[in-house]
């Protein structure tokens, strides 16, 4: 009895603390959303600028444009050359990173508290006044082509790129993967055009977070971002459906001594009403060490170092993807076992003990993954803006976890973890596994890592 009371109290304390810190949000007349999150303690400040429209905003044939644009922001900005920008940034001990995800472009930078003004000036110059010098554009494009080769030397990275392309197909925004051909079409003009179109008030979310004075920080952001042209708000265009399942892509890497594979099916959107429940179920299925997949393929059989199920979520529906690797001669055994685990999960569902365990796990790991550092909080808050979610996403997370009933969990598993129409992507020594793979899908396509691009 005493123990039960203790546990209940502990749970209450835990719950009370798991909330977004207080922050100020202001929308300017030009549409820009400014957010200031004060977090005293470690004397650092973080700036995060998010621009709605990421890879999905890349024009047809110019896949990678949003990412290349973001990477070039620091390569000449305002009156600073690329070299001057870097020297100034490094002299402050600052860090600056930029890129694009499926839904947004972003720049994130961190400075010592005392360098708030100098840091904000650097970041804002990069985001608002990049000059895209032709020499820097050429250099980055040439490096990006080489990076594709580096990706192909790394099987875990390579299979990801091939899998996206194959699962969604070339007509879907998430199936467009940056490759030699698309990089070859990107020009300084298309980059400047993308910047002019996308980096406008109506698409901007700007966050200052960390050990700062909230009022002064908001005033400083407003002064800079108030004068950005409002522009036209980026309109997200709903995508076509991904390709149908029942297909297998074999990527030949003759020197591979183990086979990497993914077994994919459609997942959910970031704002799917059942997202918390799906996250819980995916954690049980393949998102933690004791998950069904890892237990079967690693712990019980020693077939692999790790097996997981990855859930990707974005504006469009993402994927649920079983992902693992095993030595070449156990490929069939491992694939069959993975499918078997999926089938059991689908057919038999889970029990009350498993549900209780995964609920506790999600609650226990949520704070360190979302709320511990200033950059995590800044990232969570900008995500809310991009996906049109609210603070309840975090503040009500625990009640939402608690609310899931066993019966509903099992219904959800039947709906989301199908056993037919799966898409298979396999990377390995084709000669040794080709014949065996035919049983998994009626349609099989083969490519070599030596070929340009990530599939036909």
């Amino acid at each position, binding site marked *: 009895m005493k123990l039960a009371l203790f546990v209940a109290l502990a749970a209450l304390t835990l719950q009370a603390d798991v909330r977004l810190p207080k922050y100020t949000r202001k929308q300017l007349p030009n549409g820009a959303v400014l957010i200031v999150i004060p977090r005293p303690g470690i004397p650092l400040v973080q700036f995060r600028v998010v621009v709605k429209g990421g890879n999905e905003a890349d024009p047809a044939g110019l896949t990678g444009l949003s990412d290349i644009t973001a990477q070039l922001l620091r390569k000449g900005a305002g009156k600073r050359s690329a070299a001057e920008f870097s020297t100034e940034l490094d002299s402050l001990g600052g860090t600056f990173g930029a890129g694009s995800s499926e839904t947004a472009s972003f720049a994130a930078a961190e400075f010592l508290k005392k360098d708030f003004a100098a840091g904000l000036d650097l970041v804002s110059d990069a985001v608002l006044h990049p000059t895209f010098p032709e020499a820097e554009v050429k250099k980055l494009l040439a490096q990006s082509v080489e990076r594709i080769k580096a990706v192909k030397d790394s099987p875990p990275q390579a299979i990801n790129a091939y899998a996206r392309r194959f699962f969604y197909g070339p007509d879907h925004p998430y199936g467009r993967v940056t490759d030699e051909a698309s990089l070859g079409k990107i020009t300084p003009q298309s980059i400047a055009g993308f910047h002019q179109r996308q980096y406008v008030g109506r698409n901007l979310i700007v966050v200052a977070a960390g050990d700062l004075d909230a009022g002064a920080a908001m005033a400083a952001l407003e002064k800079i971002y108030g004068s950005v042209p409002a522009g036209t708000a980026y309109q997200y265009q709903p995508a076509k459906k991904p390709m149908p399942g029942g297909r297998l892509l074999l990527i030949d890497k003759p020197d591979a001594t183990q086979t990497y594979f993914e077994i994919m099916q459609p997942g959910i959107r970031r704002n799917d009403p059942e997202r918390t429940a799906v996250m819980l179920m995916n954690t049980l299925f393949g998102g933690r060490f004791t998950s069904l997949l890892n237990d079967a393929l690693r712990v019980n059989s*020693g077939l692999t170092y790790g097996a997981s199920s990855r859930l990707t979520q974005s504006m469009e529906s993402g994927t649920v993807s079983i992902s693992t690797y095993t030595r070449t001669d156990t490929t069939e055994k491992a694939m069959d076992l993975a499918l078997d685990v999926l089938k059991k999960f689908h057919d038999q569902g889970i029990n009350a003990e498993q549900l209780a365990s995964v609920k506790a796990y999600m609650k226990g790991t949520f704070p360190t993954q979302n709320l511990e550092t200033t950059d995590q909080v800044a990232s969570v808050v900008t995500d809310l803006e991009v996906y049109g979610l609210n603070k309840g996403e975090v503040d009500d997370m625990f009640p939402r976890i608690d609310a899931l009933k066993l019966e509903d969990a099992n219904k959800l598993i039947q709906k989301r973890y199908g056993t037919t129409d799966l898409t298979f992507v396999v990377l390995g020594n084709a000669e040794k596994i080709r014949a065996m793979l035919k049983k998994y899908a009626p349609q099989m396509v083969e490519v070599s890592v030596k070929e340009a691009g990530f599939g036909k």
Partner: protein
Amino acid sequence: MATIKHSLLGVLLSGGFLFAQNADVAKQTLSNGMKVLVQEDHNIPNVAMYLFYKIGSRNERPGTTGLSHFFEHMMFNGAKKYGPKQFDNEMEKSGGNNNAYTSQDLTVYQDWFPSSALPLIFDLEADRIRDLAFDPKIIESERGVVYSERRSSVDNNNFGILREQVQAAAYTAHPYHWPVVGWPSDIEGWTMEDLRAHFKMGYSPNNCTLVVVGDVNTANVMELAKKFLEPIPANTPPPPVRTKEPVQNGERRVTIRKPAQLPLQQIVYHVGDSRSPDSTVLDVLAAVLTDGQSSRLYKRMVDGEQLVLNVNAFANTTLDPGLFSFIVQPKGGVSLDRTEQVIYEELSKLQTTPVPPEELRKAKNQLLKQQYTQLKTINGRANLLGSYEVFKGDYKKLFEEDKEIEAVTAEDIQKAAKTYFTVSNRTVGTLIPETQK
């Protein structure tokens, strides 16, 4: 990936930080010799617990290489009170998760959990140190897991293949010669007796430093440590590593040819151990060379001559004399003689010309800021506190690191460059793509 456990990361210390006002760390040594460090932080309702066992691949011998790492895996496979799978099951159902890593010097266990699970975690950790089980079936299955890890981190990873061979060439006598994951034949060959002997040698409380950071009460942690860990008797720690690496008297070269899209290069020099006064000097020197896009090698190799995609310089932190490494990802078709040459030219400049004051200031600022970055999480702090305690002999050195960084002069850098970056002290490895197999 969340479910992957037991990585082979070495502990890369790049210095400490300037958080003198935060030196609120409590330290106690239990009667069995186990050291306990506690730092309270109530920002989130979570705790990071680290156990640093001073046993790693340096404590192995030919025939049982990789045993420390294999043992790290076995520590999750059942003890007396909590049987097979229960360590993970109990921890996860209480909201916790865990991992572990093995390096040349250490085996480190990491637990992250909500503060409500603190007593359970102590119970779990005590159980496996006191009464680990050795089940032959599980040992065989785990052998497969470790071999899979080797295939992923070495055999199918070009950097892994190159690094392993360069390390083996740079060390001819000292145990740093062999890889932490172990040679394949040893992975296949370990016996039950090897495992038992290893456990007895390394896993005694007096060979361990426990670090707890997060939403805890210091007195409570000390009490739990006394209750769960103090009754475990002390044992003889691993014998000192006798073999010293002889001075290298000439350049060594390693070449690997295999199918690949891009070549790779690694250049290493022997330097001192973690307590060497040059350790911080080399951190500053490395920052001058490759930290940020204004660094010397980035400007020249990535940006100017466009020879490479990445170049990184860093000094390992190791109990015995370690290596200063350059890791280079050249672009395709680039001459590897040229990339090598450029690095030597830049090292020569460091030997002949003092680093200008503003450039030195820049490198120091970068390092100081990095220290703060590592402080952001309870996890980062637990790792740093324990690493300083083990590698530098006292966690308090962490809070002096800012002064150490500030004290580095241009002359120190010049002197270190002259001492270490000599032709006869280097080992050069290249991985050359074979177009046809």
